[in-house]
């Protein structure tokens, strides 16, 4: 009771009000709270897309027959490829691939149609630009599937349906049946946005006071160190919570994310993650002398945090060392929580490891940064 009375009687409350006013009066911080998160979320959500469609295909058709045209038609049928150029010769086709103007080239030899009609194997060559290894691999898989289907069509008895294979694989995509890439990226980007904004805004508010020298004035007041810090953290926390709401509104309205899990749980865990971000921001501010150094050092922390989190490229694809290293990345745990709660309908029982990790990081980051801050105060 005594503690509560102290909490709201006067001093701390007054400090909190002072900090809030200071933040809201600073247009720059209000701007940082609103503008970058919105833009980042939209740009990330729209721009990151691993889809493999509309690959530019060049064709060198020496056969010029009905069969060869049918093969080309089969390749472009489901939009993985689009024919962008017909070349006279294989060499010219090769030049197009070399110059990077087409991703794949199809060479159909002159005796293609003849071989088919004589029931022989008819080889065609597909040149794929392998620079983009991932796209090339998926394109290769599609070419093989399309040619298999085409062959099945060839063996269709004139009257009947194309016969089906002995094993037909029926693939169902769970959680994201349309394979919308924004559904993968946006939950992760919410985490990225909170990290960038949270650490930026909290380091700015602390370093400002260092820069301007008002920290000394605060120290001369009877307020204790913990009160000064609490007064800094509480308004930041509330404002950043507003960013969580902003981000989820955008995710819901613009990207149509399903939010299948418990939304309150999502909010609560986002709040937990905000403490990590604030801790990181204060830590950066204690590390640096001025704001320029904060800029550079924040890169040092934010780049690995984001990259190892799986927000931009999947963790499962990383080499083992980095996959293990990612467990020490708080953002990784938050991204996993956000994806699970937004896309899957899972509860605490599937997420408790990540929640525990977040809690530990929050305590650790806040603890270390508060300690350093207090050491610098005295």
């Amino acid at each position, binding site marked *: 009771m005594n503690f509560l009375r102290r909490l709201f009687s006067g001093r701390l409350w007054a400090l909190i009000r002072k900090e809030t006013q200071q933040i809201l009066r600073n247009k720059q911080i209000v701007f940082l709270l609103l503008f970058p998160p919105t833009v980042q979320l939209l740009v990330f959500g729209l721009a990151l*897309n691993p889809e493999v469609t509309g690959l530019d295909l060049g064709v060198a058709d020496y056969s010029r027959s009905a069969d060869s045209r049918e093969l080309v038609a089969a390749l472009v049928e489901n939009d993985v490829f689009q024919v962008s150029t017909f070349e006279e010769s294989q060499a010219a086709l090769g030049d197009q691939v070399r110059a990077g103007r087409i991703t794949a080239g199809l060479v159909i030899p002159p005796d293609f149609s003849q071989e088919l009609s004589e029931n022989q194997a008819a080889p065609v060559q597909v040149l794929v630009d*392998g620079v983009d290894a991932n796209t090339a691999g998926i394109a290769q898989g599609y070419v093989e599937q399309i040619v298999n289907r085409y062959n099945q069509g060839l063996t269709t008895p004139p009257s009947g349906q194309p016969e089906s294979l002995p094993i037909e694989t029926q693939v169902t995509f769970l959680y994201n049946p349309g394979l919308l*890439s924004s*559904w993968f990226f946006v939950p992760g980007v919410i985490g990225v946005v909170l990290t960038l904004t949270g650490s930026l805004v909290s380091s700015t508010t602390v370093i400002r006071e260092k820069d301007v020298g008002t920290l000394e004035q605060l120290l001369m007041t009877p307020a204790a160190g913990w009160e000064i810090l609490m007064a800094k953290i509480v308004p930041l926390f509330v404002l950043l919570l507003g960013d969580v709401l902003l981000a989820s509104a955008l995710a819901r309205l613009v990207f149509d994310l399903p939010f299948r899990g418990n939304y309150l749980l999502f909010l609560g865990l986002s709040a937990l993650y905000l403490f990590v971000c604030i801790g990181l921001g204060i830590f950066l501010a204690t590390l640096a002398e001025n704001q320029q150094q904060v800029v550079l050092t924040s890169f040092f922390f934010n780049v690995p945090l984001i990259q190892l989190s799986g927000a931009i490229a999947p963790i499962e694809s990383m080499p083992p060392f980095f996959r293990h290293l990612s467990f020490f990345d708080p953002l990784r745990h938050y991204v996993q929580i956000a994806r699970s709660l937004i896309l899957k309908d899972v509860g605490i029982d599937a997420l408790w490891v990540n929640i525990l990790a977040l809690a530990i990081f929050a305590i650790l980051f806040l603890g270390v940064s508060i300690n350093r801050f207090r050491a610098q105060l005295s």
Partner: protein
Amino acid sequence: MRRIFAQFLKELSQFQRDRLTVALAFLLPLAVLLIYGYAIRLEAKNIPLSIQDFDNSQLSRGYVERIFASQQFVPAPLLDNDPTLAIDRGIAKATLVIPPDFSRTIKDKDSVEVQVLVDGTDVNNARVIQNGIRATTQFFLRSDNLIPDRPRPQVVAEVRLWFNPGREEAFYIVPGIFGVILWVFPSMLAAIATVREKEQGTIVQIYASDLSAAEWLLGKELAYIAIGIGEALITLVVAALLFGIRIQGDPTPLLVGTIVFLAAAVAFGLFVGVRTGNQTGAVQGTAIAGFLTALLLSGFIYRIDNIPFPLSALSNVIPARYYILITRDALVRGTGWAGVGFAPLAIALIGGFFFFAATRILHRMQFSD
């Protein structure tokens, strides 16, 4: 000319006096190279796959064995006989469900349907899994002679992967990192240096002197291009040592492209620095913005053709987009000028615009104050 050179020297000596900045200027690019170069991989290997085999016959076991033999999948446990539970928990990425009449149907020369449940969260690997299972199923059918004999008109596609037959993802990612590093750091350093002159008021001395805006900016421009060249060389050497990246073919497009690109990056930094007054937070915001555009709108990770309309227009004015074409060509394809001749021109155009804008702004301030 002499005055520009004096500015250039002054700028360099000022730069090397700030030890922390010097250290960060050369360490940060390496850190970015290491993290991106090693940690960005799109295609998963060793995908955990759980199996629910209701048939449990010799044939179905053979099928399962064949699927794991491809090295693409590793077995994951099936939880509580529920095909989706392991995927919910993230223990498996996919579950293959083999129906009870699997072997009987196949022996009856009929078609049987196997269910594959795939975690669709990771969109890219969902496709990789689908293709992988289909390909191994096809392979299993052929190797076990289960495809019914048929007349033989068969198109055989011989797929050749050029430039990167082993499909090493590093050959795609590492050249792209150059575009990010050499954009972000030179522009950030230039912006910080310009803002610092404003904050400390030394810019007023420039206003008072008879040095013109263009001369002052050119001195800075040259100094940070020089620093950028240092960063480029270090990055190239480390990339060669760690990732086996070599310059292929004609080195001149890379040389010209890099210098033009650095010039554009520094010009952008100067523009930001001149523009934003003394709010370092704004510089910080711009640094992040520059970083994000170089990362997201340049085709660094995913294909640039996938960016939808309003953003795709924006990506046309992102110099990193053109520079990455140059580095990918110079470090992987080796085609030379024939492939990327227009790229340095596009970069120069954008860089020239920023430099011109910075000169204009500074010029105006010089006289209004």
